[in-house]
């Protein structure tokens, strides 16, 4: 059943995608390069698209996601801004009022908080305050998550703050293909989009289909079929869940993996369908578990698939501590073993 839904979803979006002038085929890119190509495509398609952020122009961003874009589009479309996150988002709001489609880069997850008022009290509410007269198509790109051994404020997962805020959309690609397409879809969205880039996945390569969109922006997707347990996650966690599924397979457990892709709104149908099929769900995330996206998923599955469940929905999260010093991140961040421990508990019910 899930497989069929997946097929239907893909064929629908292929049909809706604009006809490309020529088939460009498939290529292999890192997520960072795929995002770069996605930004380039969006900027070529619409000259109201602007990039703004710290070090994104001449340097190409600290992760090089915007490399080469200033030389192609010029400093009027790729703005190396003053070092002030609230200023970046606040002026992006004004630019959106003028009809631009700004894409802001926040250099690291932990640096988004100086812009928190402009994102959650201004940007998120301005569409409704304007009574629908003015769209606010602002994308805020945030490299997020751990696994890179970095210093404090450079490894966090702040998604719950934004997923909790009405008026925002929140997405996170897990693969180069999703990165290439989702950044273009986020820019096309007429609403503010918090675009969370799993920085530990910037460098592994993956196949990118340059001709067909990866599905609607807010679709969740079954990325591995299974029958015994469903694992749900987003961003960098998806790769961990696939590793865990592979290990479990060797031990005789059939594991299904769902990539959330969108954290607000959440596309529930594939999730509920999978929960009904397997009856056991583990949701995993790098972020602290308390009042988190994983909590919302556990609660909603319990509400909508209660009679199908063989065990409680279990959460595997970062601990409810500040992100620890990097030498402890391997213990703090859920890995395949932590996920499999939860799988064992789910199967024991």
């Amino acid at each position: 059943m899930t497989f069929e839904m997946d097929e239907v979803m893909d064929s629908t979006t292929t049909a809706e995608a604009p006809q490309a002038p020529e088939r460009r085929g498939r290529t292999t890119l890192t997520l960072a390069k795929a995002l770069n190509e996605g930004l380039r495509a969006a900027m070529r398609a619409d000259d109201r698209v602007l990039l703004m952020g710290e070090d994104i122009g001449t340097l190409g961003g600290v992760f090089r996601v915007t490399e080469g874009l200033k030389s192609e589009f010029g400093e009027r479309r790729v703005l190396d801004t003053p070092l002030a996150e609230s200023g970046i988002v606040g002026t992006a709001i004004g630019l959106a009022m003028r009809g631009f489609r700004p894409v802001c880069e926040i250099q690291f997850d932990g640096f988004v908080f100086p812009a928190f008022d402009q994102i959650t009290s201004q940007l998120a509410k301005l569409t409704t305050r304007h009574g629908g007269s003015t769209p606010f198509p602002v994308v805020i790109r945030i490299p997020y998550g751990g696994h890179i051994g970095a210093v404090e404020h450079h490894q966090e997962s702040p998604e719950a703050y934004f997923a909790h805020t009405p008026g925002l959309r929140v997405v996170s690609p897990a693969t180069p293909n999703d990165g290439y397409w989702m950044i273009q879809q986020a820019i096309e969205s007429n609403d503010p989009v918090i675009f969370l880039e799993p920085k530990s996945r910037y460098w592994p390569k993956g196949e990118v289909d340059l001709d067909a969109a990866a599905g609607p922006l807010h679709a969740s997707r079954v990325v591995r079929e299974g029958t015994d347990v469903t694992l749900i996650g987003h961003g960098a966690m998806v790769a961990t869940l696939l590793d865990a599924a592979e290990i479990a397979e060797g031990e005789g457990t059939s594991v299904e993996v769902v990539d959330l892709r969108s954290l607000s709104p959440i596309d529930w149908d594939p999730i509920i369908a999978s929960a009904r099929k397997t009856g056991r769900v583990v949701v995993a995330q790098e972020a602290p578990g308390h009042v988190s996206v994983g909590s919302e998923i556990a609660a909603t599955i319990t509400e909508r698939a209660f009679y199908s469940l063989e065990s409680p929905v279990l959460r595997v999260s970062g601990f409810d501590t500040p992100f620890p010093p990097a030498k402890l991140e391997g213990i703090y961040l859920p890995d395949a073993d932590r996920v499999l421990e939860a799988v064992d508990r789910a199967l024991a019910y």
Partner: protein
Amino acid sequence: MPPAQDFRATVRLLSEQGTLVESDQNAPWFEVVAGLSDVDLMEMHRHMAVIRRADVEASHLQRQGQLALWIPSYGQEAAQVGSAMATRPHDHIFPAYREHVIARMRGVDFMRIIELLRGVDNGGWVPSEVGNFHLYTLVIGAQTLHATGYAMGIALEGSFATGDPDRDQAVIVYFGDGATSQGDVNEALVFASSYQTPQVFFLQNNHWAISVPVERQSRVPLYRRADGFGIPSLQVDGNDVLASYAVTKVALDDARSGRGPRFIEALTYRIGAHTSSDDPTKYRTDEELEAWKRRDPIARFETYLRSRGVDDGFFAEVQEEAEDLAADTRRRTLALTDPPMAKMFQHVYTDPHPLMEEQLAWLQAYEAGFGGEA
């Protein structure tokens, strides 16, 4: 700006007694004021006098339980009317939340402001339909960044410094003395200076951020803050509508013509409370209040207009219009109905959103279960 700014004296063209302050220093400003016709001058008085009466009426409506809150502008009319008179129709105005008279001057029905403060709406108007008068912002200073971004957009489009008066645009943003301590205001000044935006920062220093005196915000006169950002600035008597007009006119012309952002500090005073929830007798003296009442912007300008030969008939006519607006506001406020419950789900997003549809449908079914609105 003319050389007068270098002297850094407060620009005042009309004394507290309503007589012109003629001097070599003021001569360039009087040249600017000379562009105003008698009709313009009478309009300025009319705007100030009418909003003051409406402001008093709205305060009464709040006390009578009709409004959740009122934000008085009593005493600040000259800074607002003078600066707004200096804008062109295609300029963009980003208010704070006390600029009721400017809203009216650009075409906002006063009831839209009443509705905001009654709790019927959180926005109120469509800026492009009311002379590019943008929405009020209650988080102090946040709008300065929106204004700067908007001005960056004008600059990126090349809609300034062309010399074509039909094309060149500028932005003016209003904020208060308390707001100057906010990070956002300082970041807006950084961005404006960095990108040389066509923009005027118009600070109404009304001397009190609720209960905190301006001395707590700054140890230097606030207009001098602009120096550090590389933005030319000056201080004006904000209770002098002519001076407020003149300095803003020059600053906007500078901005529009590509000479960069400008910063004006208008010295004025909030005669009333911060809002209807405030009690200013707890933190300021009667002596201070009485001293500022003697500098009343409307009385001063009326004296000047009479000296120019404007007669009783005009002032009586203005008073009648003011009473009419007050009565009309009262009548229409009492007739206001609550918004439909669907309103809270509408326009949260521009594109369709599953939660909005799902939760509205649930609420409608729930309410229908009580025989209520479906």
